């Protein structure tokens, strides 16, 4: 097909797809733009793409790159080939683009075309291997390599890769004399059977680059060559329609100022594949309405752009107008932009039950429900948060949630703190919640704790994550701190660079270095309390040796009594030698204390000083606990990972879905779904002095929190923008307590007094089939996924037919039995049941059905027990809605 015919066909397709999307089938184009405005090409054959965008009369930007006519003012200097501009000779040209009677221009300067082109191993060859998947984790990039050939994962260690490609195996992978016969090329094109298949063909840019490199003598990483400073993406940040396509252009800005088109080497990913697809070549396609982001990776850098795909149908703007506080502005602005209609507000019954469950983890009692429903005050909802904060259940529930975050559990089947260790830490958390301790203070107290576990129970955090290891930087502590306090997953970086984010292995060990001065002196609980001291491993070892020597000296001194002169001399010499050695150990220990803190990077062997994840400069005064410096950096008001991590967890807790989800995977390559709301929440949290209750109050009193859970067809697919309250299954402890509360039969937990509620349990060690069944967090790792809110078959079996549930319903000491004895009026009994289980009065249809069933001759108790069973098995009970 000729180029012109292809362009016409593409244009028709574009118009057709726009028509399908419900837009004006023939948009009028008012302006054409070409990006970038100017391009510098270095070297013969250097290529660069461009993007052509057509602005319509209704303000939309359409991607017409593939449809526009592109021509060069001097094709002998710069030619246009397959949509790219290519340098042929030194000079300056103008590139013209035309589409639908509009034109635009851009300038291209070609230079250095006379110099021989030598591909860069670091910046071109290795990226080819990454782009085509040779060094991914499923193939040659994994620890064991593949079929005897190993590469560094995603090319994070080019120097090692060079060795493997050129030197290893007697150089059998390259053929310098006949490059096409090289094993690497034969395999990559599947000319020789390759388990990975044909990754690219022989007439492609990747193939040509590798041949060029082999012809140039397979040069190694060039000392002093320009490295990538940053990555940018053109073509993003647009509003498009479902079905519409947009090409992206990825550019790398190098340390020598050169800017190159890296689109063909970048790896593209969509952050929400149900909304946006992206091809390997960076062509984005909108699948349906919504909003999401695309990220492009090159070497260790990531760039992200977003797209908004509003619904086709307009929505009455009045629906978005009502705002109750600062949180509502960003939420409803976003919904308006996406044209997703919000649900109507929830009823008082729904609000009351919801607020109780989310804030107290407890169902309201029937009297509380009727009191709230009957309260005529206009501001009764606004007054509720402060009333809830004053309740003892508030402390119970939030101490438990913080216990999840800080992994409060027994160390293993034995715990060096004894049986009280977990409870003491739990008690400490209760005190912090009760005092509304600001989050930065609480975090500092945990991170910089020293002393013994009896007086500073928060040391338990270190006991659990460090365990018996003598070297804290090598343990789970490092990744746990990053995950729990900064919402960042860096565990990948222990062995290689982060696959999705800019963190490198070096960053990991720089961060780990903050923990190199932790010395846990573990003691048997019957003998002494375990203590945490600030001491490097070297200092630990020297002081331990000195201590051992001192212990050896004492009996020797005692034995001096009643010895002959000769023996005395011998023993005295031993004592003197040991004393001398002890003094040297102490001296070395003192030196170690003053020495700068460093951790050895296991792969490179380089000693790395403590440095935070954002690579900002840090000074650790000699002898100072590096954790203090870390805590200061973390709790800084400008550290958005610290404030954002917690505020996002709070948001997810109340609203069901985080602004970033999963909540412990904050990264620039996975931005919040509502950046304006993110900024507002962080500002409120930090501005209030990291006050959790302040944020909770804002959430509870906002309009968005008080939307109904019922959906309409236009918003039922929304799971990210809060157009309705997302109904969520009640968590394990809360559900168990709810069943106990409404049936009046408490559960018994081994080792605890009867009447203790599940939300008061200090740790998951208690045997409870119900809690395990409903996804209680084991607190084994710092991952937020430890707590599981899903619905499973065994759960439903248990609710329908579990002995404990059935017994609680039938129990003669239970609430229903008491009601049946004391209350003759069935309507009143039914009302009480509905109020306690559902938090509302029965509806007319429900009352009618029960009345009918009660009058068909069946036994009263049996009918009402069946009603109770039905209520406890309903979604309206089991879900918070």
């Amino acid at each position, binding site marked *: 097909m000729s180029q012109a015919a292809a362009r016409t066909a593409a244009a028709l397709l574009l118009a057709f797809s726009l028509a399908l999307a419900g837009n004006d089938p023939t948009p009028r184009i008012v302006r054409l733009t070409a990006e970038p405005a100017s391009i510098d090409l270095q070297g013969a054959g250097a290529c660069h793409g461009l993007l052509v965008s057509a602005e319509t009369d209704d303000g939309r930007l359409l991607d017409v790159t593939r449809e526009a006519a592109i021509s060069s003012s001097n094709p002998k200097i710069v030619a246009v080939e397959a949509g790219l501009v290519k340098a042929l000779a030194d000079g300056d040209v103008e590139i013209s683009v035309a589409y639908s009677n509009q034109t635009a221009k851009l300038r291209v300067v070609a230079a250095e075309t006379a110099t021989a082109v030598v591909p860069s191993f670091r910046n071109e060859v290795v990226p080819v291997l990454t782009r085509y998947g040779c060094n991914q984790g*499923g193939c040659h990039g994994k620890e064991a390599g593949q*079929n*005897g050939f190993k590469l560094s994962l995603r090319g994070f260690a080019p120097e090692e890769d060079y060795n493997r490609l050129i030197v*290893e*195996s*007697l150089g059998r992978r390259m053929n310098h004399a006949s490059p096409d016969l090289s094993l690497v090329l034969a395999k990559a094109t599947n000319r020789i*059977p390759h*388990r990975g298949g044909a990754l690219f063909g022989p007439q492609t840019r990747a193939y040509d680059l590798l041949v060029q490199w082999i012809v140039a003598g397979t040069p190694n990483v060039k000392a002093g060559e320009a490295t990538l400073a940053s990555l940018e993406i053109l073509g993003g940040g647009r509003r498009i329609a479902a079905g519409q396509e947009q090409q992206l252009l990825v550019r790398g800005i190098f340390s020598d100022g050169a800017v190159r088109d890296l689109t063909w080497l970048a790896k593209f990913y969509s952050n*929400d*594949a149900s909304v946006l697809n992206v091809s390997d070549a960076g062509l984005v396609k909108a699948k349906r309405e919504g909003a999401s982001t695309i990220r492009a990776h090159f070497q260790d850098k990531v760039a992200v752009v977003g797209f908004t795909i509003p619904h086709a149908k307009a929505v009455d703007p009045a629906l978005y107008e009502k705002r109750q506080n600062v949180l509502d502005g960003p939420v409803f602005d976003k919904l308006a932009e996406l044209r997703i209609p919000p649900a109507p507000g929830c009823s008082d019954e729904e609000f009351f039950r919801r607020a109780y469950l989310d804030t107290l983890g407890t169902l309201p009692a029937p009297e509380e429900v009727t009191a709230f429903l009957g309260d005529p005050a206009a501001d009764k909802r606004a007054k509720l948060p402060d009333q809830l904060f004053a309740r003892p259940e508030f402390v119970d529930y939030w101490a438990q949630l913080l216990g999840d975050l800080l992994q409060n559990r027994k160390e*293993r089947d034995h715990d060096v703190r004894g049986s009280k260790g977990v409870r003491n830490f739990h008690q400490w958390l209760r005190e912090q919640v009760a005092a509304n301790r600001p989050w930065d203070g609480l975090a500092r107290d945990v991170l910089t704790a020293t002393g013994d576990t009896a007086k500073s129970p928060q040391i338990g955090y270190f006991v659990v994550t460090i365990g018996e290891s003598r070297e804290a930087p090598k343990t789970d502590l490092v990744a746990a701190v990053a995950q729990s306090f900064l919402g960042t997953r860096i565990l990948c970086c222990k062995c290689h660079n982060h696959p999705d984010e800019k963190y490198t292995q070096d960053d990991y060990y720089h961060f780990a270095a903050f923990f190199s001065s932790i010395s846990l002196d573990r003691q048997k609980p019957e003998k002494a309390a375990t203590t945490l001291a600030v001491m490097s491993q070297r200092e630990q070892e020297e002081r331990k040796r000195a201590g051992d020597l001192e212990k050896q000296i004492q009996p020797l001194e005692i034995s001096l009594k009643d010895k002959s002169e000769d023996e005395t001399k011998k023993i005295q010499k031993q004592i003197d030698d040991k004393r001398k050695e002890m003094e040297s150990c102490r001296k070395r220990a003192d030196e170690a204390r003053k020495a700068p803190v460093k951790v050895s990077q296991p792969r490179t062997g380089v000693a790395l000083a403590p440095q935070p994840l954002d690579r900002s400069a840090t000074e650790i005064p000699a002898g100072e606990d590096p954790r203090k410096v870390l805590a200061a950096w973390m709790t800084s008001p400008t550290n958005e990972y610290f404030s954002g991590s917690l505020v996002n967890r709070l948001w997810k807790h109340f609203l069901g879905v985080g602004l970033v989800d999963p909540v412990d995977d904050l990264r620039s390559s996975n931005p919040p779904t509502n950046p304006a709301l993110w900024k507002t929440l962080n500002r409120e949290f930090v501005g209030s002095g990291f006050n959790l209750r302040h944020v909770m109050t804002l959430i509870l009193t906002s309009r968005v929190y008080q939307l109904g*859970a*019922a*959906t309409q*067809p236009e918003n*039922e*697919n*929304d*799971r990210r923008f809060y157009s309705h309250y*997302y*109904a*969520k*299954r009640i968590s394990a402890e809360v559900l168990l307590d709810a069943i106990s509360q409404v049936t009046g039969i408490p559960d018994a937990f081994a080792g605890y007094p009867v009447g203790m509620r599940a939300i008061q349990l200090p740790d998951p060690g208690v045997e409870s*089939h119900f809690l395990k069944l409903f996804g209680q967090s*084991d607190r*084994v*790792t710092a991952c937020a996924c430890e707590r*599981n809110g*899903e*619905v*499973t*078959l*065994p*759960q*439903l*079996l*248990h609710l*329908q*037919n*579990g*002995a404990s549930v*059935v017994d609680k319903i*039938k129990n003669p000491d239970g609430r229903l039995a008491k009601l049946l004895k004391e209350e003759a009026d069935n309507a009143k009994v039914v009302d009480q049941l509905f109020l306690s289980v*559902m938090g509302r009065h029965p509806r007319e*249809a*429900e009352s009618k*059905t*029960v009345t009918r*069933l009660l009058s068909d001759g*069946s036994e009263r108790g*049996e009918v009402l027990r*069946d*009603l109770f*069973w*039905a209520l406890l*098995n*309903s*979604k*309206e009970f089991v*879900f918070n809605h």
Partner: protein
Amino acid sequence: MLDVPMSRKVHAHCDGMARRDFLRIGALTPLGFTLGNFLGAKSAAAAEGKGKAKRVILVYLGGGLSHHDSFDLKPDAPSEIRGKYNSIKSNVTGLHVGELLPMMAQTMDKVALIRSGSHNNDHHETATNWVLSGRFGSAFGDYPAMGAVAAHETGFHGALPPYVSIPRNPSFTWELGRSAYLGGKYESFRAGDPNEANYKVRDLGALEPIDAKRASRRSELLSTVDSLGSQVKGDDQIGTYDEFHQRAAEMILSPEAQSAFDMEKEKKELRDRYGHSTFGQSCLLARRLVERGVKFVTINSGGWDHHAKIWEGLEKKLPEFDRGFSALIQDMADTGLLSETLVACFGEFGRTPKINKDNGRDHWGPVASLLFAGAGVRGGQVIGESDKNGERVTDRPVKPSDVSATIYNAMGIDHHGWLNSPDGRPIEILAEGDPIPELYV
């Protein structure tokens, strides 16, 4: 194809290539057996087993079975490696097994023994998740166990769940072999310990008489009060709740589901034959379940992690295993079930050749013994071998992904197929691995 075995430290040149590999590839051509023929023959053999397994029973030996003392004895090794036991003849000429397995010795004609299971990990949690899913991931289980994938591909039909674990999933410090990103819906249904007196599946037995009238009343009341499902659409947890509520009700009310788990329904002689141990009765329960349509049953037999006092440990566990597993194979062969049921048996690794100072063996990834039977597998053969000390594989290494590819192939599941993670990311069922064609030759 350059088929380079994973551990080529033996006889290796300094560049890591083993001479015998060059010989192996080169030697085939003069015989007129080209690479094309070779690959073709391999896939034809694998095609033999494809889809033959209507169901799978996986016997998982958590902790790591000592191959030196069970299926891969080294009578000529020095005593600190050889161990305590002698080999005994089996009913397959030339094949010997350990003396603690006399009943298995009479069943080996139906079993294919792989002596070259091999990988490079010795961490319980990581290796367990690896062998149960076929994909290497973290200790916390990034990939779904094969049973969960089978449940996902099969779906829920009839009163019984598609994937059952007896008594439950394996665990060390935390639960392993879970459904990972497939979610709670496809998690195994825990059957509990069928050897218990008055064994009942938790929450399954009807606790009080619910006659048809009462059942219908409950159902009416529930649909009257529970309107949340009609108000909230697009939420998959709400949809799942309704689906599972229905299934749970069916299980409780259906006589089939109740009787499937009723061990009393089996003749006493048969229960004796399997042996009155948790393992033995689990094998029997597994047979009952697959007969009644359960697609994938995992029997989790833990406690094989004999770091100390291994003889005492094995003398307790191997006889139970011997009796139960041989009974399972024989019973299913007698009833014709075996031809449609794939049985696989393995642990997360083997154990060290050298006996340690506590009279035990430690973890050893490079060599392990694996058993396969049923669904077209040719019994009475040995695939692969380990060296004279049981330390390295010398022939035909079999990776965890190969084992999983074999099992998926037998079930007719394309292991290159894609499943979706909760955030919509497509994930291949297996990243690598090929079905083991020798099983069917």
